């Protein structure tokens, strides 16, 4: 397939290795990855903070860039969540029925990475190798908006050499406290939630925390790094891209020595 990669502004700027890993995984499975360079941002931060009209031009731009793609894949549950759940609302706000129609036609072709692999391609084993103890945080968008179900876990379980340990379901399912601008506007509450999430992660004795959203990983990983907890974060794509042949990607979603 020709897969149009929707990198997301967040990953593009702060976590390019996630895009690189995603590209490698898809190519390894025999697909052609194209990168529409005019893409920018899906508008989620604006929409969620209440600047909903301001996202209209961003939505138009997204549709311009990706409208003709065979399939669009993004390594971000939250951005795909924005597109699939809220783009119709933005179209309604704009009053532009043509835009609404183009969005409706595009949405079924937009996927988060793990659901693309498991549900669309029917693949769980992508030939990965990652001999480390890993725990998985199901982000709120993965869990409740996109309903990825166990797709990410199925992919992780198939990774050779992995020591996958799960957090207790009730703890895993609780929000980490990022919530976009929530982490800034309600910093204290965000930190209280972060504390409990870090505790759940540390209780697994995992070396690596994995998730389908680098935003949550930046938040949890940032806290773990501040605590010198000795736990690093990797996006799902980075683990899946890791093979016996390749060097494991050494950069991560948490800060490290320059």
């Amino acid at each position, binding site marked *: 397939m020709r897969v*149009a990669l929707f990198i997301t*502004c967040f990953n593009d*700027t*702060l976590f*390019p*290795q996630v*895009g*690189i890993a995603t590209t490698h995984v898809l*190519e390894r499975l025999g697909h*052609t990855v*194209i*990168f*529409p*360079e*005019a*893409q*920018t*941002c899906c*508008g989620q931060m*604006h*929409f*969620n*903070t*209440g*600047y*909903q*009209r301001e996202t209209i*031009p*961003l939505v138009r731009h997204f549709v311009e*860039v990706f*409208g*003709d*793609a065979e399939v*669009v894949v993004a390594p971000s549950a939250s951005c795909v969540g924005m597109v699939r759940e*809220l783009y119709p609302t933005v179209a309604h706000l704009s009053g532009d029925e043509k835009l609404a129609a183009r969005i409706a036609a595009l949405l079924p072709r937009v996927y988060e990475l793990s659901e693309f692999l498991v549900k669309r391609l029917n693949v769980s084993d992508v030939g990965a190798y990652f001999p480390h103890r890993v725990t998985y945080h199901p982000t*709120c968008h993965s869990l*409740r908006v996109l309903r990825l179900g166990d797709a990410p876990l199925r992919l992780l379980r198939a990774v050779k050499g992995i020591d996958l340990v799960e957090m207790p379901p*009730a703890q895993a399912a*609780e*929000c980490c*406290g990022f*919530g976009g601008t*929530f982490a*800034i506007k*309600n910093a204290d*509450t*965000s*930190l*209280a*939630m972060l504390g409990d999430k870090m505790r759940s992660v540390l209780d697994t004795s995992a070396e690596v925390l994995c998730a389908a959203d680098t935003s949550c990983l*930046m*938040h949890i990983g*940032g806290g773990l*790094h*501040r605590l010198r907890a000795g736990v690093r974060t990797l996006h799902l794509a980075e683990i899946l891209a890791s093979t016996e042949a390749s060097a494991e990607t050494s950069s991560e*979603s948490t*800060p*490290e*020595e*320059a």
Partner: protein
Amino acid sequence: MATRETGGIRPLPAFPDTARVALANTQLRRNLGKATTTIRAKRANVVSELPDWEELREAGAAIKADVMRHLDRYLLQLEESVTRAGGHVHWARDAAEANAIITRLVRATGAERVVKVKSLTTDEIGLNEALRRVGIVAVETDLAELIIQLAGEKSSHILVPAIHKNRSEIRDLFRRTIAQGQELSDEPQQLTAAARRYLREQFLSAQVAISGANFGVAETGTVAVVESEGNGRMCLTLPRTLITVMGIEKIIPTFRDFEVFLQLLPRSSTGERMNPYTSLWTGVSPGDGPQAFHLVLLDNGRTQVLADEVGRQTLHCIRCSACLNICPVYARTGGHAYSSVYPGPIGAILTPQLLGLERAKTLPYASSLCGACYEVCPVKINIPAVLLHLRGEVTQRAGPLDPEGVVMRQLATIFASPKRYERAQRLGRRGQRLFVRDGTISRLPGMLAGWTRARDLGPIPQQTFREWWRQREPQGSQGPKGGA
């Protein structure tokens, strides 16, 4: 237009400030943590027992949506049914009017004391204070409400209002008030027995009772109160006069609809298959219970909520508190932080709509939008969607010179153009040099300082993804603009 404010026009305290204070209360954190974890598990358990839970939610949502769309018709039908059955119906535009009606009714009986069943609606209108001003004592008969009334405090949870108090505080309180001179340990059993003794005297001698209502059936005029302790049954049965205050949104169309809501409510609120006692009564029954029944229908801002097509679903709420118990924010800050009779996720959308957005504009932001509330709401209120809608209203009213708005609109312009976007990326990467120490950013200025208070940040990498893409050997096809 009549005011819909229940107490002045000052804005509520900002949630980030009240939350900060609450988060530091260690006893509250422990009690709340234990309570919410326990109830979450109980709820999940009894819900999983039902194979048709989703169908019940669907029905509940549809019935309530129908009620709101035809609210005027159903209210008129309710009035007719109640009147036919010997009850009296009164309409109150706002809190002041409701309090005036109720005060007049109580005074007409000559009673100086009334017994009360817990009712959020009566808290909303400040009924107890209004009665006290004219020398009428309202005795709260729910154990938790009694506790906080004796302590002179406010409730911190819809269902378990005294969750912030521990047993020895309660023992000391009782020793000072209702159990003077009695030997009393801090065992919950003994404390409850002391309350029972005190309240039994009240029940057996009370002439007037005031209650709220969980549901009011338009078709038959039947009113329902769902409870656990039995004080509801006492208040609804023994006194001669009963006054019930009901928000106009509490209507259900037919008697049959109980089959939906009496399944949804107990499992969602206390995590039980059924709560111990539910009372249904219609008007007046000769020889059985109160011989004078008054139903006060309350607007107090609900018609404003009704006018908003997106916000209207807020009125579907059946006050189960499932959203409070699942909310990661509420579970840590408790109810007082919301500065309102209605806290938690439902409070974050109901309070601003009832009081006016100007008074409560931080409440729609008191959420990380995790969506857990929507999942557990028995009537499928899309709380995240209403939160987003209210945030949109807040920013629209902030005006063009609001600093955050200026920045956000600038960013939107940048993001709308690939060239501007890429330039911003490069600028950010250059600008960060001031903040990077030993490969980490541990201190950010201004608004972003909140981030680095407790988290480190990785530096912006030296190469963006698109720069990497452009440099790579061409592999397979890569159209000039990608997706074209």
